[in-house]
């Protein structure tokens, strides 16, 4: 039984409770970096780290946080982990840190982090919250990685900066520009929703 609940918690955000295409949460800060696969990967890891550890921390403290100021406490905890991500990147990968610009800091206002804390970590025990945080982060990351994969491949003919498609490929400039991100996400949501609707009716 105890094991089952962990598995269920882990699987739900990957499919039917996916934060991106079911709950449409938290696309603000990360969609902007999906024009390159390597940027997206680093951002996704940052989100998973922040999400998992802040869920865990809030869950440990949940009985001591006064409910009137809980938003403030949550924001402080999230911001602390984001600062860790930010200074780690700045110290070890200065190039990456530069190209991500303000978006690392914007993980703080990413609704998905606050959303999972409010919806899950405040009611559940720490270990379960950690699992939920990691799973939601992965559920979020894989959607963005798929979007980034398509955008970079079609937009520049490369993946992680390596040329994949040869000279014959005409790059779709629109894919790496902002509208491409909107269209890709819309198409992804469309496909995912159709797939899940079919599953629900059958």
């Amino acid at each position: 039984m105890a094991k089952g609940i962990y598995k269920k918690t882990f699987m739900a955000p990957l499919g039917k409770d996916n934060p991106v295409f079911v709950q449409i949460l938290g696309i603000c800060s990360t969609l902007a970096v999906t024009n390159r696969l390597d940027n997206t990967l680093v951002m996704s890891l940052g989100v998973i780290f922040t999400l998992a550890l802040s869920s865990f921390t809030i869950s440990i403290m949940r009985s001591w946080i006064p409910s009137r100021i809980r938003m403030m406490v949550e924001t402080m905890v999230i911001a602390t982990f984001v600062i860790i991500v930010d200074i780690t990147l700045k110290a070890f990968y200065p190039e990456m840190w530069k190209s991500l610009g303000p978006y690392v800091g914007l993980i703080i206002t990413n609704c998905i982090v606050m959303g999972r804390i409010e919806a899950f970590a405040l009611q559940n025990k720490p270990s379960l919250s950690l699992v939920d945080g990691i799973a939601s982060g992965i559920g979020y990351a894989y959607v963005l990685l798929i979007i980034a994969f398509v955008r970079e491949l079609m937009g520049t003919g490369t993946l992680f900066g390596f040329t994949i498609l040869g000279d014959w490929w005409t790059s779709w400039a629109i894919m790496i520009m902002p509208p491409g991100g909107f269209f890709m996400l819309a198409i992804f949501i469309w496909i995912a929703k159709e797939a899940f609707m079919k599953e629900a009716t059958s």
Partner: protein
Amino acid sequence: MSDMLFPLAVFFAAAFTNNILLTNYLGMCSFLSVSKEIETSAGLGIAVTFVMAVTTALNWVVYHLVLLPFGLEYLRFIVFIIVIAAFVQLIEMVIERYSEGLYFALGIFLPLITVNCAILGASLFMVIREYSFMTTFFFGIGSGLGWFLAIMAMAGIRQKLKTAKVPAGLEGPGIALIIAGFMAMAFMGFSGMIAIG
């Protein structure tokens, strides 16, 4: 370009060519969930413009007069968020006290604003781009107006869309994202006008 005109150029760039919503995807959450009605969109748009203009200027002052001299730049995320949250709280109390009408019109949007990525985003952009105070002020107003413009246009289109037949899987956020994509393409048309970052 002369120094006098630079803040104005930044203002127009922030509102049109580098629209914070359509080119940087900031403030998407509230954009998608609130843009169903024109009146509520206008309320949120005004609130965002106002808060963004004031908080970016405030954060500039805090960053340059407190954080930089003491070498505390890495604390900027926490400090900016506190400034924004405190300002929003203050405004909420002031208008609750003095203007009941305004409170009912804007009050419900104010809590939403604290977690609006666009507000924090504007503050972070002004740090990275090293704007002067004047430029920051115009940048804040411009970004806010750009956001206001985008959500109003979106609300207008979505009201017309109520009568349209949308594929079931695209209903709601899906179609809104596609509209936003077309709007972003339209706004790209402005990019020939001003060429600054």
